[in-house]
Each structure stands twice: as C-alpha cells, then as structure tokens.
C-alpha cells in the first residue's frame, strides 16, 4: 500500500485515490513502444488502404526516436518516461505524429515534476498520477488533439478510439485501476473498429473518400493500442492484444 494515497482517502470514496503503481510510467511506455513497433506494418497497411500510406513509417520513426530518448535520458520518473515518448512523436512528419506527441505530452503533465524523491503530497516515488489524475489527463489529451486536429467524434480519426475510452474511464469503478483501464481499452477497441464504417471528414482518409470504407482508421487503431498498453501496465501484464487490427 502506498502511503501517499492515504491523504485522498475518505469514508465515502475509499477507491477514488486508486494508484497505478510506481512502475506504471516505465511499464506503460515500454509496452507502448513494443506494441506499436510490432504493429507498425499492420498500421501502415491500413493507411495504404485508407490514407496516404506514411503512417507505418511515422510510427516506426516515432518509436525509434522514443527509444533513443530513453537510452540518452535514462528516465526514472513517470514524467520522464512519458516525455521520452512524446518527444519521439514530435520528431515525425504527417499530422497524426505531432498529434500523438501532444496527446502524450498531456499524459506526461499529469505526473509530478518534483522528481522521484520529492515526497510531494499525492504522488509516489516516481511521481505517478493516480488513476483519477490519469483519466483527467486522457481527457485533456483528447481536448488537445481535437484542438490541433480540428476533428470531431465520428470523423474517422484517433479521436474515435480516445473519446469512448475517456467516457468509459469516467463511468468505471475508480477503486480498481486495472479494471477501469480494461473498460477503457474495450471501449477504445470498439470505437476503433467502428471507424471502418464511418466516412472521414478530417485527416488522412478524408482525401480518399469512399475508398476508405471498410478500413479501420490506423490512428484510431494505434490509439486503442496505447490505451491497451496503459491497461496492461496497470495490471502488471507484459503484452497487449493487437490481433484485432487485422
């Protein structure tokens, strides 16, 4: 039991301070890196059918950049792990790369920046946010992605996976981080799958019109994998289910 979570515990909301664990930042980013690297070919294939075909390359470049940052910066806190990932994304072209970068940047901000040994109230030794703070960061990330990408829900973009995940987290039992994130992952995957039936108004697939019908949006698929990585990290698991991408 993490003693720092006691401050937010009250008789009516015993679970509201559910923690993600001191290892969450490292595990989340490591799993994101592994999962997206492994899925890059499949994501690139989706993009060739429903976009301009550069997403697989951009994902690989972003993950290579993140790996380099991790090697050079030797992150120890949650925020440092997330920063290595967001800076990796900001070094790639296209539109969804920078948007993923800004999404991860909002997740990074949720961590304490006082360093591992700060003992700052409400944060653990690695400055990891609570589940509630992480859920709020996902919502902030969605707002940022929508601000910069000018996409609405249903436009066949990464937002279609992120929005249901944010909603599912709000509705979930906040006392169990792994279960709440599992609900978010399930909602994100369903949202990503549904993009196969929608017509793009923004982003990559808007240029190819009906040719993208029946194809899952690769940005939404990647977003669902990221949520899956968060779930696996919170559950202490070592892999993310990605076969559903096709």
């Amino acid at each position: 039991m993490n003693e720092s979570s006691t401050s937010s515990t009250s008789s009516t909301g015993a679970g509201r301070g559910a923690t993600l664990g001191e290892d969450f930042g490292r595990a989340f980013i490591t799993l994101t890196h592994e999962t997206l690297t492994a899925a890059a070919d499949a994501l690139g294939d989706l993009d060739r059918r429903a976009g301009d075909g550069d997403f697989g390359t951009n994902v690989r470049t972003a993950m290579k950049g993140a790996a380099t940052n991790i090697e050079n910066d030797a992150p120890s806190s949650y925020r440092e792990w997330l920063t290595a990932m967001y800076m990796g994304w900001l070094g790639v072209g296209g539109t969804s790369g920078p948007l993923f970068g800004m999404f991860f940047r909002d997740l990074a901000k949720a961590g304490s920046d006082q360093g591992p040994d700060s003992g700052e109230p409400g944060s653990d030794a690695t400055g990891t946010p609570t589940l509630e703070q992480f859920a709020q960061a996902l919502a902030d990330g969605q707002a940022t992605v929508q601000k910069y990408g000018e996409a609405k829900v249903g436009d066949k973009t990464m937002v279609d996976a992120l929005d249901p995940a944010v909603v599912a987290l709000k509705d979930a039992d906040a006392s169990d981080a792994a279960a709440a994130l599992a609900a978010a992952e399930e909602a994100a995957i369903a949202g990503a799958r549904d993009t196969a039936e929608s017509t793009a108004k923004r982003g990559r697939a808007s240029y190819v019109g009906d040719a993208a019908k029946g194809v899952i949006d690769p940005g939404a698929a990647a977003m669902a994998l990221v949520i899956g990585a968060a779930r696996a990290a919170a559950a202490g698991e070592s892999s993310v289910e990605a076969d559903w991408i096709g």
Partner: protein
Amino acid sequence: MRRSIVNDPDDLVAEALEGLVLSHPTMLELDAEHRYISRKQKARDKVGLVSGGGSGHEPLHSGFVGTGMLDVAVSGAVFASPTALQVLAGTKAADAGRGVVQIVKNYTGDVLNFRIAGEISGDDAIDTEIVLVDDDLASDTGEDDGPGRRGTAATVIVEKICGAAAENGMDLQQVAAVGRTVAQRSRTMSLALAAGTHPGDDEPQFTLDADEVEFGVGIHGERAQRRIPFTGADELIEQLVDPLLEELELGRGTEVLAIVNGLGSAYPLELSLAARALHRRLDTDGITVGRSLVGSYVTSLDMHGVSITLMPLEDELRELWDAPVRTPALTW
C-alpha cells in the same frame, strides 16, 4: 525524362543546406540534426524571427537568413513540413530574450507543427506569435471552414518587413502586428507553362499541352482550378494582374510593392519582360510600382512559371522595406 543534379534524392535537402552554409561561411550556420540554418552571429536584444517549411521553394526560407531578415529557417523534406521538434529547436535558437515571431505559410502541416512548437516553447518561457501568410488569391474559395488561401510569394515581403521591424527594436506584439498587416494587404496570382519534377522522378507532376497554361497554380506542383489558352506575355500577365486589382481594390494613384517571381525555371530575361508587362498594365489604371523585386524568390522545384504579388505601400511599410538587409538571397 527529366534529370536533376542530385546524388541520392533522400540526401538532397541535407546536402544542399551544407552547400549553402559553405557558400556563406561568415553569414550562416547549420544545425545538421534539426536541419535549420541560423545566423553565424546570433542577434542580441531583439525579437527573434523563425520561418521554415518544406524544401523545394529556395531561396525561401534559408536564403533569407541574415541581418535585417530571419534569424532561423527550418527545412523540411521536399514539399513537407519540418517536424514540430525541428521547429521547436529553431524557435529556441531564434530567441534572444524578447520572444519569437514565427512566420508560417498557410498549409495544414506547417501550421500544426509551428503551433505545437510555439506552445512547447512556452515551457522555456519563450513567448511566440505566429504570423500566417495566406496571399494566394487562386485558392480563395470564400468558405470559412476550408483550409483558406495558400501562402506563397508574399512570404518574402513579410520576412523582410518583420525583419526590419525586429532590428528597429519593436517588441513581439508590434513585429507580429506589422507582419499581419503585410500578409493581409498582399495577394498573389501564379501561372505555369510546365510543372516541376520531384528529384528522382522521371515525370513532371502534371503535363500540359502546347496550347495550355495552368492558371492559379500553387507552389507544390498541385494542379490548379483552371487552364487558360497559351498566348503572349502581355496578355498572360494581364490575366494575373486583373484579379489582384479587383481583390485589393487598388484605385488610381495607389503605390504598390510588386514581386515578379519566377517559379523555378523561368529565366531572368522572361521575368524582366513580365515586369514590363506588369508596369504597362498598372500604368493604364494609374497605379505606380514604388518598389519591386524581379527574380526567382519562392520557387516550386523546376516549375516553369511566374507569379505576381502586389501590396499597396504606405510610409511605414516603405521605410521597413528600404531598411538594410544582408542575406544570401536579398541584400541592400
């Protein structure tokens, strides 16, 4: 079959930037990792100016780094925006403690990456302002929710005038405001007789018959909305100028700054002749060309074409335009 002077097309931008800096060793410096060119002698105590965008438009932007103009120019791949990380590094390099104006041509990728870089610069307490250049009249659809007009040759005027404003000691808001005024007052129309060819490609981006002219063309080899019949230079230039006069509502006695810009493979003799046609056309409406540039400043690889940019002048803008400038591509 078109050929280019390249080694590996993938190395074109990096090698060309090296060549530019080698050619101007006292004036320029290259950050090879982030692919930006900066002044060799970093300016002090003034608003910083950073611009950039896809490559293939040279001398824009890298050729305009120097005293009186840009502090930093960031280069993307051919016709592709630089990444947010590159722009962030360039923005930080341009900062001399008084904030940074980012001059951005209105394209989705450029706008996104400069906005993101601007936001993240805030983490380092660097204030930024974006000046968006959207002068291309041909892409003006009148719709509010579209991508808006493209940014083309007026970028040179914005970079020159903001550069002078910054050297004169204006603050961040003032430099941005004068830049926005320039962008708002400038409009451009372009035509092409032949498209450019991507380095490494065999074929140009589009082909035209001998009696066709691509009218209202952009600077990325994209097709225009219209084709018009090929005819003599006077008549072609007139067709570029007329919509500009109408849009800018230029009356008799107006003094303008004009750019007669080659799009890549128009030769100087053609551009001088186009300038003559422009002056004659403006003369008949009682409009005078107070200042002008004639040459290839904002190009589209080897596109054979010309653009005309007009901006009504007034005293402050004329003074800023006339202020000293020393860059590889513009010096007085």
